[in-house]
């Protein structure tokens, strides 16, 4: 890379993309980048295969750069979905592309668990929540099927280098408040397009108080305020985590002193209260305790936002303390990955959830976007640890989806609803 930190200060996003483009790029430039990895799902791969075929190709340029995850469709998604999945699977086998099959889990979670997303890399996913990889000091961003086909064709893609908003975190979360509440507060304050085209850079002393699960939630939800990426620094919390996963080959990227920051958003974690997003907008957020009591029919615990060990530990503790799930409520548990499922099984958590009456589903995207798993009945109210509550999102436009932390969802499971 050309230039020095002193005469050419850059943001994390500018440095990460300069590295991926092997060029000195700045915010506003179009960078032709070589992603370290590109992930596709059964929801996006079939269309990418069609685009590639339209380019006269059936072979990919670099199979080692690609990862396929069969996460959006499951055994109950119907014959047409399974045919789309079979098309993706066959293509992976023909091209020797690493494939995570049905039940292995959500692609984003797998890329994080397997050490594929690591500091200094550009890792893209043909799914909007690829921003999750930012927790690993990666430039993680969502692409479409044609971009994925482009990477298959030539190993490269175009990216406009984003400007940066610094999210300065102070203090420590109080008891009962989660990273999901930080994400919802950001949506509340900034709006669903508040960070459109921008990179979020999480900084400040509050970062050190957040574990990896917390950071993944914030990076994951960055796209809900329009951000192109939501990037954390590489600190001892991340380094310890990488060591546990067994990743040694990485290059941490930090912002230069004097880098061009467009806006600073300060969040005092210690002042936060549990939040809830009301139907049908992610930024329709209010204090949970300010809501009148609202009965719910379904509590959904899962997804690439809220389907990790911490989520289930916290939820199980709340439900166990209360002794029971409300008779009126159906609790659906969909672990984000097979590894999480296995750990829940070996620690007895799955058994405890089942004994309390919860329904445990196979790892994957589950009920999040109405493509597999439980679909709500007409007019039902769902409180969910997921990231989106658009009308029709879970496959039924008459249902109402509320978003909250796993902890708040668990309280709703016990009380049969949320609010006062």
């Amino acid at each position, binding site marked *: 890379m050309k230039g020095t930190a002193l005469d050419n200060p850059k943001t994390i996003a500018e440095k990460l993309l300069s590295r991926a483009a092997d060029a000195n790029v700045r915010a506003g430039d*179009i960078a*032709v980048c070589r992603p370290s990895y590109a992930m596709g799902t059964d*929801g*996006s791969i*079939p*269309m990418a295969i*069609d*685009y*590639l075929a*339209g*380019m*006269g190709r059936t072979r990919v340029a670099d199979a080692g750069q690609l990862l396929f995850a069969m996460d*959006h*469709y499951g055994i109950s*998604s*119907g014959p*047409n*979905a399974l045919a*789309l999945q079979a098309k993706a699977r066959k293509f992976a086998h023909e091209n020797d592309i690493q494939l995570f099959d049905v039940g292995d889990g959500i692609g984003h979670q797998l890329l994080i668990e397997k050490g594929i997303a690591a500091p200094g890399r550009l890792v893209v996913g*043909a*799914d*909007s929540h690829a921003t999750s990889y930012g927790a690993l000091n990666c430039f993680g961003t*969502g*692409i*479409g*099927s*044609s*971009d994925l*086909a*482009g990477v298959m*064709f*030539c190993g*490269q893609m*175009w990216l406009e280098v984003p400007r940066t908003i610094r999210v300065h975190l102070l203090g420590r979360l109080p008891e009962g408040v989660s990273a999901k509440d930080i994400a919802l507060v950001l949506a509340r304050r900034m709006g*669903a*397009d508040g960070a*459109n*085209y921008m990179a979020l850079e999480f900084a400040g002393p509050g970062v050190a108080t957040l574990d990896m699960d917390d950071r993944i939630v914030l990076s994951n939800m960055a796209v809900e305020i*329009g951000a*192109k990426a939501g990037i954390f620094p590489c600190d001892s919390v991340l380094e310890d985590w990488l060591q546990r996963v067994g990743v040694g080959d990485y290059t941490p990227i930090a912002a230069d002193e004097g880098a061009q920051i467009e806006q600073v958003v300060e969040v005092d974690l210690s002042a936060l209260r549990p939040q809830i997003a009301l139907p049908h*907008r992610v930024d329709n957020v209010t204090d949970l305790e300010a809501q009148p009591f609202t009965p719910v029919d379904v509590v959904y615990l899962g997804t690439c936002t809220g389907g990790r060990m911490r989520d289930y530990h916290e939820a199980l503790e709340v439900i166990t303390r209360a002794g029971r799930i409300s008779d009126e409520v159906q609790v659906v548990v969909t672990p984000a990955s097979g590894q999480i499922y296995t750990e829940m099984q070996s620690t007895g958590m799955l058994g405890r959830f089942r004994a309390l009456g919860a329904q445990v589903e196979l790892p994957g995207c589950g009920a999040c*976007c*109405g*493509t597999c798993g439980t*679909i709500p009945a007409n007019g039902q109210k769902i409180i969910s640890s997921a990231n*989106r509550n*658009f*009308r*029709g*999102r879970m*496959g039924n*436009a008459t249902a109402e989806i509320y978003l909250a932390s796993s902890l708040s969802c668990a309280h709703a499971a016990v009380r049969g609803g949320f609010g006062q």
Partner: protein
Amino acid sequence: MNEVLASGSARLLGDDINTDYIVPSHRKKETIDPQVLRAFVFEDIHPGFYEAMGAETILVAGTNFGCGSAMEVAVTVLQAAGVKAVIAKSFSRTFRRNALNNGLLLCQADATHLNDNDAVTVGLENGTLTIDTNADERIKAGTMPAFMLEMLSHGGLTRFLMAKGGFE
């Protein structure tokens, strides 16, 4: 010199039209064929939208058009339904990418004062996008980077890459 890029009848939409509203996620598990999926365009927010569409439509929306999922059928379905261009105050980034990659013309401009069925023409004048309406009004819609214009002129990303054998 004003080159006409698209023309059609305006259809007005609001702010934050997400891709699930353009076509619900659960529809694409049945097929990704836009000729089939077009019948479900806006079904959850405007039932009957597709039936009422003409052959050439210009969508006019508020802020953050295309937010949510990165699913590319949200673009190909609009194209199959006869949408020639989308004018919005702002676009979500993945939708914008997918649109450019598929050769769907996007104009960033405020045209929300238009009415349904107003005739709209989008043109290019010295690198600047212009929107002409039947009220003899001309709205400037900004410039487009040369790279994006070149990709659009090829008809999208895959044709661009095929023509050039790659990016470089």
